[in-house]
């Protein structure tokens, strides 16, 4: 393919779609499939076959539409472009919807209101194709502009210009750190080497987050295109996508997408008729959170124990097999094509001064509408939780929003109006993280939540450095004491000191940030810790508190006496 034939194919496919009477979009993402999308699809297909309607109708098994907790979701679009979305669809309802729509009769099942804040408050850049295309059909993507940005870049721009454009857009890494993407690209571009690599980080280890999975599953070509543009910009001919092992569907779709793109000359050698060659291979993770850390991820790609190595040297200088390597998050890559298509200034029009564009969040926990959302940076947490999320179910009272997973923290109600951007969240002692946003109500106990995250870090510590390997275990022990009632006031001090040590002396980001949930909850919810220790009371009613401090046991009475005498 060359740019012209790409445009032709896009026009052709668009025309085909416009001639259809009705298009049925059925969300076929994992949550909706789990909720029963499969029988719905079968029922619709049977009906189509029976009524001989296949010619003017199309069922599109799409990626994620967003409001996952309301699945299975079905959207119909008629020839005039009118749309209706239905939630929790059963096979019977689906048939009814289809038959009535064909007959142009009003549908009995009530559709979701079109002005639902869940939809209208979002800005979909990264997810613009998600829920609109069948991710396994490359034509669908091409019809919506996939690979046109790549074509433009390859034929009209120099590598330097691409880097400058990305820098100009203000895009920052979506993997958590928020490092300016354009700067990173420039570093790799300027590193002299005979070979370079581009890596997409799709490890998404943050428990309670599934943005990257959805992007890879719903619009794989978007990621591939972003990587190819990156490859051109930094001078790499080989890319790797590291997909978390828990996401077999994402891996399968990516493999399929790579093959489809290669067959059409959109990847591989002489991409789109240019002199640029770019291959992408997949690497499947095998279950280790630390492999999301960039240096560990690279050791894992090389087939070894996924342990981090000290930086510097940074991957931009020496990464895979010692060559300069560009590593970005999947969502970061998914932003590239829209930026190149519509310009850096357009992109920079979204968001705040220092945080440009949008961010995808997995909104979960105690909210009415849990699902995947994309919002402009700078939106307030309140809007996310109460407008888009629809508030807490069953009259629950908001207690905290957790962002950043095990590296982040809990944001209390008094800070609900904080704008969501990199700096503001950091100021609150949390981080933007990769996009997990979990809402908690009054039944969550903060020391218990801190213990939960510490348990996670303890299990996921790679074991290379002492502060993280042993420190996480000791912090977990101390938190266990607090939650089982056997802690004393000085344990709190020991815990805080240990937190500082682990933060400052660990080798990689896992250890450095592992104490964050503890320090952050200690800051906002210290009373709760004190209630556990001093009053033997868990305000949320979660902890058993059935142990007593060692020194209060009768058999220690004698020791206690000696202790007192000495002091």
């Amino acid at each position, binding site marked *: 393919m060359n740019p012209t034939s790409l445009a032709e194919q896009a026009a052709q496919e668009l025309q085909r779609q416009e001639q259809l009477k009705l298009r049925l979009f059925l969300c076929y993402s994992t949550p909706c499939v789990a909720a029963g999308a499969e029988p719905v699809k079968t029922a619709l297909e049977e009906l189509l076959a029976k009524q001989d309607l296949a010619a003017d109708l199309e069922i599109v098994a799409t990626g994620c539409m967003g409001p996952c907790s309301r699945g299975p979701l079905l959207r119909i679009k008629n020839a005039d472009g009118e749309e209706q979305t239905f939630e929790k669809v059963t096979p019977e309802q689906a048939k009814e919807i289809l038959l009535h729509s064909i007959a142009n009769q009003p549908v009995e099942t009530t559709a979701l209101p079109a002005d639902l804040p869940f939809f209208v408050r979002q800005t979909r850049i990264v997810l613009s194709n998600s829920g609109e295309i069948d991710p396994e059909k490359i034509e669908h993507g091409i019809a919506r502009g996939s690979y046109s940005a790549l074509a433009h870049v390859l034929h009209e721009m120099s590598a330097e210009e691409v880097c400058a454009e990305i820098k100009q857009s203000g895009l920052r890494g979506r993997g958590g750190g928020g490092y300016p993407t354009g700067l990173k690209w420039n570093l790799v571009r300027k590193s002299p080497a005979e070979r370079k690599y581009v890596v997409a980080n799709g490890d998404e280890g943050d428990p309670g987050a599934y943005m990257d999975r959805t992007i890879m599953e719903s619009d794989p070509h978007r990621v591939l295109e972003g990587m190819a543009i990156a490859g051109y910009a930094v001078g790499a001919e080989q890319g790797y996508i590291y997909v978390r092992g828990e996401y077999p569907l994402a891996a399968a779709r990516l493999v399929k997408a790579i093959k489809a793109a290669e067959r059409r000359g959109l990847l591989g050698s002489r991409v789109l008729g240019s002199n640029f060659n770019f291959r992408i291979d997949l690497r499947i993770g095998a279950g*280790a959170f630390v492999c999301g850390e960039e240096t560990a991820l690279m050791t894992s790609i090389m087939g070894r124990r996924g342990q981090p190595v000290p930086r510097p040297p940074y991957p931009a200088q020496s990464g895979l097999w010692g060559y300069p390597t560009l590593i970005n998050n999947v969502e970061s890559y998914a932003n590239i094509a829209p930026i190149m298509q519509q310009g850096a200034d357009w992109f920079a029009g979204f968001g705040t001064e220092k945080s440009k564009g949008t961010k995808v969040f997995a909104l979960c926990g105690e909210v009415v509408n849990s699902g995947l959302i994309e919002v402009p940076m700078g939106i307030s947490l309140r809007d996310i939780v109460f407008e888009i999320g629809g508030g807490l179910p069953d009259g629950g009272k908001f207690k905290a929003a957790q962002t950043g997973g095990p590296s982040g923290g809990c944001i209390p109600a008094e800070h609900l109006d904080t704008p969501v951007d990199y700096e503001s969240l950091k100021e609150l002692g949390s981080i933007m993280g990769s996009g997990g946003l979990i809402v908690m109500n009054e039944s969550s106990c903060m020391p218990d939540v801190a213990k939960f995250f510490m348990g996670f870090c303890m299990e996921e510590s790679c074991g290379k450095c*002492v502060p993280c390997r042993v420190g996480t*275990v000791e912090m977990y022990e101390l938190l266990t004491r607090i939650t089982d009632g056997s802690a004393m006031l000085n344990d709190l001090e020991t815990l805080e000191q240990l937190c500082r040590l682990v933060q400052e002396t660990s080798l990689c980001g896992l250890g450095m940030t592992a104490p964050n949930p503890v320090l952050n909850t200690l800051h906002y919810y210290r009373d709760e810790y004190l209630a556990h220790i001093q009053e033997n009371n868990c305000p949320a009613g979660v902890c058993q508190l059935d142990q007593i401090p060692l020194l209060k046991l009768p058999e220690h009475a004698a020791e206690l006496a000696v202790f007192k005498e000495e002091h």
Partner: protein
Amino acid sequence: MPVITLTINDELVSARSGQSILEACRDHDIQLPTLCYLDGLSARGGCRLCLVDVAGSPRLLPACTTEALENMVVTTHNEKIDRYRRMILELTFAERNHTCAVCVSNENCELQSLAAELGMDHVRYDYLNPELNLDTSHERYGVDHNRCLLCLRCVRVCDEVEGAHTWDVMGRGVESRVITDLNRPWGDSESCTDCGKCVEVCPTGALFDKGSSVAEMKKEASFLRRILDGREKRQWQR
């Protein structure tokens, strides 16, 4: 080789370009505690005892893996660093079962002498008391996992110097253990050449000569520099 100058503890010192901060310190007799580092083996940066303050860096940096650079300003000791080093040692002691009184390396142990040197006299953390075994299946040597610090000197010397790669690590986090071959008894190892280098470089009583009793096991790791210079530079020296 090009020479650079940097400041360590307010003193201007010179170093060869490419040297680590630790090597520069050692060349000028500036003391820095280390456990995982051993002259002659690749640096690992795991024990975190050699952390130093480098002006301009927001974080403490391990001297063993950080390259000394022109005009760097390094501080090797201050109240915070010394406190952190003691805490890290406490964590190391709490991790396994270091009962010095019954250890073959008592009085000849790097961990023990570091604790004395840094003034670490109590452990405020819970002893984790893992249940670990003692493998004495090898004809000449034994491994007692209770004393292992996971410094991985044994793994590195076996791979980098002896070339056998008998040792490696299994598991992760606090569950990590050093293993020989497919985690089989050392004595059954097909790759072990019985050279004993790992025993000599092990900083504690974790690897020992069979037959040594309490406080009898003395080790000497300086052989490493000697054979490496001999091998690489053809310079045998004593």
